[in-house]
């Protein structure tokens, strides 16, 4: 997973550099935002001639998935509002899925560890990509624009065929858990 995140970080660094962001700003964005989909979207909008407001709105829309993810994990984050908010900032797609246990609860320490590894891979990858981006004439020639959607596609839970004769609700629950179990295998690969 860290390797994939690192490759995508390189991809973002290249795209950001080509869009006119300095290496330092690209790295700062990755360090502060730490959300690939939002970053790619915002940079693409600005590079396409869109305004900063539209880019930020696009980033917010892309990150809207973190709202239900934050709601789901909230009961397992202890402490006062500030402490819970700081823990909520650590949520990213893969670590959230990895932290989901079979009984629907969350292992927050597992999520923190997974997010920390991804954070390092993402920021280091961005630094490498932003530094090397100037050497590439056309990043699209490397197929970098296909890499990020493919990453999310690989993260998506896989559907399971419900067992005939099972109670529908139980089958649905198993489907959800099974999906996220396979999700975990993906995260560990």
């Amino acid at each position, binding site marked *: 997973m860290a390797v994939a995140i690192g490759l995508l970080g390189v991809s973002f660094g290249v795209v950001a550099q080509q869009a006119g962001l300095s290496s330092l*700003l690209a790295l700062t964005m990755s360090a502060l935002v730490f959300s690939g989909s939002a970053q790619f979207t915002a940079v693409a909008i600005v590079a396409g001639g869109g305004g900063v407001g539209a880019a930020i709105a696009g980033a917010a829309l892309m990150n809207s998935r973190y709202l239900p993810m934050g709601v789901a994990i909230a009961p397992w984050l202890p402490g006062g509002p500030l402490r819970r908010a700081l823990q909520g900032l650590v949520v990213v797609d893969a670590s959230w899925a990895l932290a989901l246990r079979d009984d629907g609860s969350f292992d927050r320490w597992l999520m923190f560890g997974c997010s920390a590894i991804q954070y390092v891979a993402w920021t280091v990858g961005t630094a490498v990509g932003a530094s090397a981006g100037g050497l590439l004439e056309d990043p699209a020639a490397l197929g970098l624009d296909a890499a990020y*959607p*493919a990453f999310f596609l690989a993260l998506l839970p896989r559907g399971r065929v419900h067992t005939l004769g099972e109670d529908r609700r139980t089958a649905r629950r198993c489907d959800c858990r099974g999906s996220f179990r396979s999700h975990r295998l993906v995260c560990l690969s």
Partner: protein
Amino acid sequence: MNTALVLVGGCALVTAAVKVAGPIALGGRVVPAAFTAIVLLLAPALLAALVVTQALADDGRLAVGADTAGVITGGLVAVRSGSVVAAVVAAAAVAAGLRAATGQ
């Protein structure tokens, strides 16, 4: 203020706001199981929408191109191998190969 700085700061703020909203609003309260079941399905649904729009959207219109073929290949590789790295590399390789072959 520098436009790029506003972009980076704005993106950081909205991302933080979305991420902390749930943990702050709900706190340690346990939500009903039915609600949790729905919420758990929302994130994959939004991710799916993200994949479709990024694979098919091209300057405000829908288009099938080398990137679409790359994403589909990446998905197939992910299903077959379970490796995210292999999926990402395959997607980029197919998109790049098709562009090189067609001169796009």
